[in-house]
Each structure stands twice: as structure tokens, then as C-alpha cells.
């Protein structure tokens, strides 16, 4: 089947199999910033925003994303123009191996959009779908707090 997708603001015409999951389609298209950690929706490495909603792309049929808008972590910021969340992750030491980071950054983005001033008690469950084995989460939680502060003062 064929159709169009919008990925990070770029319209793409794609052909896909009916049973293909969004994760595979995105990676095949070169969006390798979407990581595969478990393929069971348990780790959050493959998170993307689908019409602004956080989804594990391994659990979404690619066909269901046709005609819709997808944002990956690269859609938030770039190396030369990073998003404040990405900067906060760098500054607090929240990036160790960096494999979970795209998902963590997107989960943070989704949280701060809904709740610009989250408490730690609100941050923790918001990151519950994202596994990290390197950091112990301490500095990731710090990063979320720092990003919230920065974005609030920028707003």
C-alpha cells in the first residue's frame, strides 16, 4: 500500500506492507534516531509523537500513520539548534550511552507540554515507560526539572 506521511514537517510518499510497524518504516526511511530496544512497547526507545501524542512506534501499524504527522527527536532540535530539553539533558549529565535519550527527550517534551511545571512526583510516572540502565534516572529527572525551568522563563 502507498500513502503519505509527514515526518518532522517533511511530506513523504511511502509504500509499505499492511503488517509493517511504524518503527520499521521509520528506520528503513533513514530515521534511525528512532531506536529499537524491545519491540514490545516496554522500553520507550522507539517513542515518537504521532499527531503530538506519544506512542511506541513498535506498537503502531505504519498504515495507521498514513496522512498523519510524526515527530521524532530530530524534529525537536538539531545539533546546532538544540531544544532546551536536549540542552538540559547534556548539562545535567542525563546522557550516558544515549540510546534511551531520544525516547526520554520526547517523553519529557510530551510531559512539559501538558504540565509545564511538573513536580518530581509527576515527573517520575511520566517517564515510567522509558527504561534506562545507565543513569539510575537521577540526572534524567534533574534534566526534566531544568528544562521545565528554562522553558518557563523562555515562554
Amino acid at each position: 500500500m502507498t500513502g503519505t506521511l509527514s515526518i518532522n514537517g517533511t511530506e513523504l510518499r511511502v509504500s509499505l506492507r499492511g503488517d509493517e510497524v511504524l518503527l520499521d518504516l521509520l528506520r528503513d526511511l533513514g530515521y534511525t534516531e528512532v531506536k529499537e530496544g524491545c519491540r514490545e512497547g516496554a522500553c520507550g526507545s522507539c517513542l515518537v509523537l504521532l499527531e503530538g501524542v506519544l506512542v511506541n512506534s513498535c506498537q503502531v501499524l505504519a498504515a495507521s500513520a498514513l496522512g498523519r504527522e510524526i515527530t521524532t527527536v530530530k524534529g525537536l532540535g538539531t545539533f546546532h539548534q538544540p531544544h532546551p530539553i536536549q540542552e538540559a539533558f547534556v548539562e545535567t549529565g542525563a546522557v550516558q550511552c544515549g540510546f534511551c535519550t531520544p525516547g526520554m527527550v520526547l517523553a519529557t517534551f510530551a510531559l512539559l507540554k501538558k504540565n509545564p511545571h511538573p513536580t518530581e512526583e509527576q515527573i517520575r510516572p511520566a517517564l515510567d515507560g522509558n527504561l534506562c540502565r545507565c543513569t539510575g534516572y537521577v540526572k534524567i529527572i534533574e534534566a526534566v526539572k531544568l528544562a521545565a525551568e528554562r522553558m518557563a522563563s523562555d515562554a
Partner: protein
Amino acid sequence: MPKKNEKSTSLERSHVGKSLPKNDALALATAQELFTADYPLEGALHCALLYSPHAHAEIRSIDTEAARAVEGVVDILSYQNVPRILHTSAGQGYPEPSPYDSVLFDRRMRFAGDRVALVAANTLETAREAVQKIEVDYEILEPLLERRRAMEKQAPKLHGGEDHAKIPVAYEPEKNLAAEVQIAFGDLEEGFAEAEFIEEHDYSLPAASHCAMEPHAAVAYIDQRGRLVVISTTQVPFHARRIVSKLIEVPMHQIRVIKPRIGGGFGGKQEVILEPLVALVAWRNKRPARLVLSRREVFVTTRTRHAADLHMKTAAGKDGGITALQMDCLLEAGAYGTHSLTVLSNVGSKVLPLFNKIDNIRFHGRSVYTNLPVSGAYRGYGATQGYFAWNQQIDAVARWAGQDVVEYCKRWHIRSGETSAVFEALGEGKEGVSQVVQSCGLSECLDQGARAIGWAEKRDKRIRVGEDKVKGMGLAVAMQGSGIPLIDMGAASMKMNENGSFNLYVGATDIGTGSDTILAQIAAEVTRVPIEKIIVLSSDTDLTPFDVGAYASSTTYVSGQAVKACAEKVADQILATAAQLLETKAEDLHLEAETVRDKTGKKSISFEEVATSATYNRDQYQIQAQASHTCQQSPPPFIAQFAEVEVDTKTGRVEVVRFVSAADCGQPINPVLAEGQIEGAVVNGLSYALWEEYRYDENGRMTNPRFWDYRIFTARDIPELRTILVDSQEPTGPFGAKSIGEVAINGPAPAIANAVYDAVGVRIRDLPITPEKVWRALRDKGAAADATGSTEGTNSTDQPKGSPRS
């Protein structure tokens, strides 16, 4: 007490001790960096593997005809067409101390998940479809699924025949014995005889998965000049090159191994598992090849922490001093013996020296084969297993002696200027190296940690929280090493560019730890330039010098010392060239802020001028140097870890509400990265203490190979974590540094177990500490109390007689 900065020069440190962001952090946060599976490989063959469903079987025959007939299948590998070359998959120095008991494809299947065949096809779907069409006729053999039965005469045997140890060590496959280690000092029986108190118990720990978020992957291609390039998720690129060369019978000079960004390792990627397979496919077919494991494959077919049984007998005299310590350990190697000897050695060698005033000691360890998934290296590397048992024994002894365990540990731990006979007796595959500890801040760690958690206010208080919960406090102490002495080697080279910047080339392997950054900090400290002027390239066997890789807590201490020596040589060249240009003596000059200055401050010249002159103008040469470093000893980092738990007496549920780690890793090169190592290890350790374990069905198949069933801690589950760095100065380390990568995983499980005892008086000696185990223990204790007519409830203590506790 070693003083901070006692060796510091007149110049203020510019980079060491500063929490600079990792030099790859922004590229990772914006997802610019490539991990192994992200490399675009035009026209690659996709590989899929067929695994044995049986724990123990012999393949009578394989029929690949139907698989080959699938359109798009290009190659199929099995024992039928791959040379049988005995080796170990352990990424260790050569000759490896692990037995040569593996081949790439065998007829004998030794666990449910052992490798049967590989299909390479034009698409992944085709490869997977073809794998299903391979027909295998198995002769099913009786499996050995219990490690405690492994050495029985009638137990099924896994290995034998051509299998052998590469170095002279105990290896007896005819007894399923993958490794054996024994050391003894003094007279154990005499030590027991003179004791006033003996604590003797069995402990048990399950296998566990590293759960690096990035699954194992490898890709390979043939470059423009016909050489083989392998990119893989490896902690050991140079060992990978050596092992690939041997297994695919291609000379080493034809092979290049590149380590890209790695999504965590923790020991799980200190194994050469996938690299030979993609290398073979690429070499045979002269096409790129890729193999990316699923999470399920990572769980079942890569490596685990060694499950262990420990028998501990600890005897103490009146003052609580230990008169004899017996430690017997049975490790489960699983189907192959990779790391079995060295993990086993570390159960003793990283634990027993901590209390170095015990005269009578015996350590006896065995690693045995079973038809279960393969154990290997895992952060902590045996010390985690040993300390789980040891710390509970110590807690019990201190309680019996009526002493606070914090003070007890302060009294008995090894100190700066002291040694332990164990250092020399127990090495990694051979005798160890004697060493005198030259930095130890453990007493201060104990004091600071106890203060931070409120030890005095909450230990032994059994504070009630609501209806059913009781608070408890537990302590665990531990040490590790810094590299493997006289074995580990790291090397660095460095060159100066005309504008005064430097390229730093290191074999050291950054797997997410931040070693690229701390090594750059060391180079920047020596050369006095901003960190961004140190351009780091690491772990490419064509471009960088050798390094053993990221394991054994060695990178900061071993590779860091190589970088420091290398940068010092470069600095000498800069000084010599500047001396000529300034017409003065090099010894009157020093480096400061990208400038060479003389002592008077009158003469100076910028790095850019020095480098430009050396490159283009006068007595031209490339300012560059190289250096190697082999550690002569392995100075231990120390840690004191404190758990505050709340135990629900109705359900047995244990919640860790607060956890404090106070660590002495020498002078931390980058405190935030050091904290990150500790926090990551702590949370992994907490998760292992309470939740993680491999579960098997009656046929030896793992039943929980997915994150939904093998749960690990998330941000929601962590307690309030506090990390304290207690700086010491290690004279043999770069700028006083020791290691920090592993030590912090050793304390969580025993600290929690000790805290559970503190709260409700039951000891859980087998991990994980599940609600069911605690609940049963409480019930049994209550039943025992009823039977003896005790009036105490389930919260009563089972303190041994003579305890001062009321």
C-alpha cells in the same frame, strides 16, 4: 587520611575534577550519533539465527534444502560448512583464562538457545522465513539443569574431548567443572575452635541480564581494497579483531574493527558473539552483512550474571574480631565457561581483602557447566555475589558482638599502608599481584553515609509507618579493583595541529561511560588547553593504538595513565620547541592557557605559534607522541552503601525509600560522570535485589525473556538516591584517580537484606527479595515463636543469645 590535592602542582587544576559535559552528549541528545544498527549498508545481507529448542541434544542431521529454496536466501551456515575452531567468546587478554569450549556451530546443543544455523538473505523477512524452514533432527539428551547436581557422577556431561584450557588452570570437563579456585591461610579449624560465635549460612543469587538498552548487533562489509570491516556493539574491539581473525581464518591485517557509539554494556558486550558471524557471511559472499538481535535473543542467547550458591561460615571472638572465615562458592557457568574462572576468582579476591586482619581463611570456588544460558562478565564480576553473602555475615557478627555495624566496619577494614595476602594469592587465571593499599577513604565514606541517611536515628529503632509497615536500616561495604594488574594495557597517541589543538587517539572503549571525555580532560589538564581543543577518536583498530577495552574497571586508571604519559611527552616537545623559539631553557618554561611562559612572565609564546613553527618554519617536525600503560597493581575503590526500607508485615513487600552511597574512587576526574556511574550501578543493584531473575521451565527454557516479565526499575521505582564522593588521592592513578564503574553494584542487595532484618528480624539469603519470601519468613518466624510459647509477634527479633539489643 589522605589529603585532597596533596600532589597538586602550583597551577590550579584546569580540567581534572570538573564536571564537564560528555563530549558526545549533545550529538547523542540530538540523535546525530550512529549506533551499530543505524549504519546504512547498501545491499546488505540480513542474518537470522536458528536456535535449539532443547536444553541438551545432538543434531543427527540438518536439512536446509527447503530453506535454500526460499527466494532471496543467499547463504546458510551450520556445522556442515563452518570450520570447527575451538575458542572462548570471552573478550579477554590473550591467552584467555576461559576454557576453549566453544565453536561457531556445533552438532551438540548445550542449552535451549544454543546456535544451530544462520541464514543470510536479501531481506530480513526472507531470512526469518527460511530459518523456519530448516529441518533439524535432534537426538534429545538428558539435560543437566541443577548446578548443585553438576558434579555428581551420573550427571549428564556437557563438554569433553577436544575442549581444553588455554592456560594451566583447573579444568575438568569430565566432571562438568569449568573452573576451580582454592586458597587457604592459617588454620581454619583452630579459628573456629577459638570462636565464641559462629554464623553459618547458605546464600543464593540468580542469573540476571545486563539489559543494556541497545541490543547486541554487528555489521560487516568489504572495503575498497578488499579488507573486512566489522562494526559492532563491543566493549572489546581489539579482542574482537583477534578472535574474528582466528575464527574466520583471515589474517588480522585484513580486518578492521570499529566501535561506534554503544548503548551500554555492563559486561554483556565483553563477548565476541556476533562479530565472527557477520564477518564470515561478508567474507564468504563479498557482500555487507548485518545481524541485530531481538531483546528476546539478548536475554536467552547472549550472557548473564553467574547464578551462585555460597556457603559462609564466619567465626568471631569476644570482641567481635573474626577468627576464621570460610567461603565456598558454586557458580553456574551455564553451557559454556566464558569468564567462569575469573568471575569465580573475583568472588574471593575482591571480597576477602576488605577485612584484612583475619588470620584463618579458606576460599573454595567451583564453576560448573549446566544446560542453561551462558554466564559471562557482568558489572561487579563475582564481587556482587560474594558481597551479598559476606555483608550479611558481617551484619550478624557485629550484632552478636553488640556493636554498631558502621563502627565495626570502621574498625576492621583495610587501611592505607596495609595489605592482604589475598591480593597475591588470587589473581585472574594465575596468582595475583601483591599490593599495599595506598588510598582508602572507607572510614570517611562510612561516617558521611551514616550521617546522610540518619543512621543513628533510625537503625535498630523499628519505627512504625502506618498500620503495617516497619522501617529498617542496612549497611553494606565493598571494594573492587582498578584494572587487572600486569595484564591490562591501554595505549594512546596524540598529535598537535597548527592552531594549537590536538588529536587524541585511544584504544579505550567508551560504551556510554564517558571515557572519551575523561581521557580528553586528562590530556587537557596536562597540556593546559580548553577541552574542545582535544579531538578524541577512540576504538578503531586501524586508527588507534591498542587497548584491552572497557572492562575490569580499568579505563580511567589504566588508559587514563597512558593518556597522561602521552600528553606529558607532547608537552615536553612543546616546551622544547618553545625554548628554541624563545631562546631560553625548557626547564624554565611551563604551559598555561594555550601558551608557553617563562617563570618571570616576560617571555611567552602561544601554542599556535609553536605548532605553526614546528610544522612549517623551523626544524620542522610533527609534535606528537605515544604511550602505553600497564598497571602494576589494582588499587581498590571503596564504597559504603546504606538502605532505608519499609517492610509491609502483612504482604512482605519491601520498599526502599532512601539509598545512600558514599564512595572513594580517588580523585574523580569528572564528578558528575562518576556520580552517574554510581547511580546507574545502584539502580541496577536495587532492581536485582528486589525483582530480577532468570526463570526456567522444567525443560530449561527461559520463561521470562521480555521486559514485561523480566522487570527492571524505571524512574517511578527508584528511591530517594544520594551519592557522595569522598575524594582520596591514589598515588599510582592519573591525577589521583581510581575506578568507579563497578563497585557500586555490590552493595544494594546486602544493604537491603540487612535493612529487612533490622526492620522485621528475618534474613532473606536468596535473591531476589520478593514479598513472598519475606512474607513466608515472617510467617515461619511467627509459627516458631508460637511453638516456643514466645509472646512476641512477627516483628520479634531472632537475635542470637548474648545480644545487647532489648
